């Protein structure tokens, strides 16, 4: 009996809101912290690219040889030589500056394509899940067809008729990411719409739009945030792939995939030109993947270890 009394004494129980609890879990999650550090670093590079980069990313340099290997004073490069930490690219530009400016482009690419896909996919999924019936069937069959193509190849096909270029490549990647978000939002909407608080809202006479946007969507956000973070990683990889193939960003834009593509034939005589942009892509994608995994564990432990990643 005494133990029951102890439980009823609520003065010692600290209440933490679910949101605060999630943030606490996130900051105790090893990989999430690592992901946030990487992304924070990239964000600083992207915002202060102009101040950090030692040279202009597009302007050609004089008095340097093309594809010159890195010259680092600390590692014994002659002090009278100008320092180029990542070396010189095939058009005699400073590679480090180009990689730094590339972070801007990469983050923009990830955020813009995923926002586009969430916006369109979210609306499609919410309508399909909320309305149901033939409309649901129709919308989901269309999504099935889009998913019947490997996503990168569908993006390539879309670029083939839109024409090459960065904007078209982004549009293509955005389009192929739509089904993933549509399906996710649809399934959460379906599972949420029968819950008590939605029934309660309906019974006090709330209209359909209010139920959908005021009650259902806010409660479906958790898996969406996780999937969006992981989706940014995929989008950055796909965009780099399109640019690598020569179907995305055009020279002289400092895009990492393009930088790799332009110099892929110099891999044996100037490996630094291939190495550094690739590491930049890998770090960025790793950052988003780690943060996504962390968010999944922090926000929704039920999703742990599922195929959502």
């Amino acid at each position, binding site marked *: 009996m005494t133990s029951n009394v102890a439980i009823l004494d609520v003065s010692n129980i600290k209440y933490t809101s679910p949101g605060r609890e999630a943030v606490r879990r996130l900051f105790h999650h090893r990989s999430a912290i690592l992901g946030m550090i990487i992304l924070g670093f990239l964000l600083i590079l992207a915002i202060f690219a102009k101040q950090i980069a030692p040279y202009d990313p597009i302007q050609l340099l004089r008095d340097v040889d093309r594809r010159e290997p890195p010259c680092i004073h600390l590692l014994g490069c002659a002090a009278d030589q100008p320092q180029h930490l990542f070396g010189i690219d095939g058009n005699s530009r400073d590679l480090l500056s180009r990689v730094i400016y590339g972070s801007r482009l990469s983050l923009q690419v990830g955020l813009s394509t995923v926002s586009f896909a969430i916006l369109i996919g979210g609306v499609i999924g919410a309508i399909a899940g909320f309305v149901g019936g033939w409309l649901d069937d129709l919308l989901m069959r269309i999504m*099935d067809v889009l998913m*019947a193509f490997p996503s990168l190849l569908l993006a*390539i096909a879309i670029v083939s*008729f839109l024409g090459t270029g960065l904007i078209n490549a982004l549009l293509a990647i955005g389009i192929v990411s739509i089904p993933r978000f549509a399906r996710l939002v649809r399934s959460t909407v379906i599972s949420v719409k029968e819950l008590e608080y939605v029934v309660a809202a309906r019974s006090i006479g709330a209209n359909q739009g209010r139920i959908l946007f005021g009650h259902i969507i806010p409660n479906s956000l958790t898996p969406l945030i996780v999937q969006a973070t992981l989706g940014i*990683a995929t989008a950055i990889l796909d965009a780099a792939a399109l640019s690598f193939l020569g179907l995305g960003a055009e020279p002289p834009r400092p895009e990492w995939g393009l930088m*790799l593509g332009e110099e892929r034939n110099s891999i044996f005589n100037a490996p630094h030109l291939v190495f550094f942009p690739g590491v930049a892509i890998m770090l960025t994608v790793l950052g988003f993947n780690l943060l996504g995994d962390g968010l999944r564990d922090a926000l929704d432990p039920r999703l*742990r270890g599922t195929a959502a990643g």
Partner: protein
Amino acid sequence: MLRFMARRLVLLIPVAIGILLVTFLIVRLIPGDPCVAMLGERATPTKCEEFKERYGLNDNVFVQFVRYIGNMAQGDFGESIRFSRPVSDIIAERLPMTIELTLFAMLFSTTVGIFLGIISALKPNSFTDTLTMVVANVGVSMPVFWLGLMLAYFFALVMKDTPLFIPPSGRLGASVTLVNLAKQWGLTELTGISKFAVYFLSNSAIANSIITGNWATLKDALWHLILPSVAVGTIPLAIIARMTRSTLVEVMQQDYVRTARAKGVNERKVVSRHAMRNVMIPVITIIGIETGALLSGAVLTETVFALPGVGTMLVQSILSRDYPVVQGFTLIIAIIFVLINLFVDVSYAYLDPRVRLE
């Protein structure tokens, strides 16, 4: 089981129509006049008229679509503008390379991935486990074309003059050639599917060398396939290893594993007979999901290793606006993707009786 397969096949019909519609639209959605887009500078009014007549672009869209389905069903993929040859011939030439690469990458990623996953799961938090999971996380984040280039650099340049040297590009060594099977068998008047099949076998370096018993060629073909397969397979490998690990850790705590142990079954059998059977279900799903990554990876990696496959042809055709080739190749990749997924679903049902009854 038969009923399950029948139902699964019926579900394919709307998807197949959708795929055909998407590939059909690729050519119709080109902004501007398709004739100008495809013929470029050669597009004079008379040539355009002739061109539209030849490709039936003057009929209404619905008629065009029905005719398109009819043509595809007969294996008529149109004619390449750049090469003035049937697209189906080009597919028969290029597809074997991509299929070989995809299959070998899949073999590599599943065997090594499942193996690493088991080791990590049986000794959680050991050095091997931590290392595997770190490599898995990094592996998922690597661009496949970059990994390919790095592998090429390491095994072809750094390892040069050592036994670990592996050729970084090309399908076969310079002095190695494939036998033309059609000529060898005296088949000159081939048409339709048999022509496609003979061309396909003839152009598959592996099938060709096995059929003709040319073991030196086979060895050379496999040798050239190592680096691309490792590059393409690494990302799926990482994902498969993570999935195997997390599922096996969970399964090892189940009651039936404890029961098996209590019966005195030795640990090796507990894992291989009792646990792994249940681990395979989610792992096979992941393998199915990863086929898309494998096919896309193959397309990207071909460019890196200068392999004569679907990917290199597709990119060249987009850049030179050879739309019939783009259309045919997109369609064939989608068909392969759908068929692999079908195969995965069927094996899923085979492993898990609950799926069949659903």
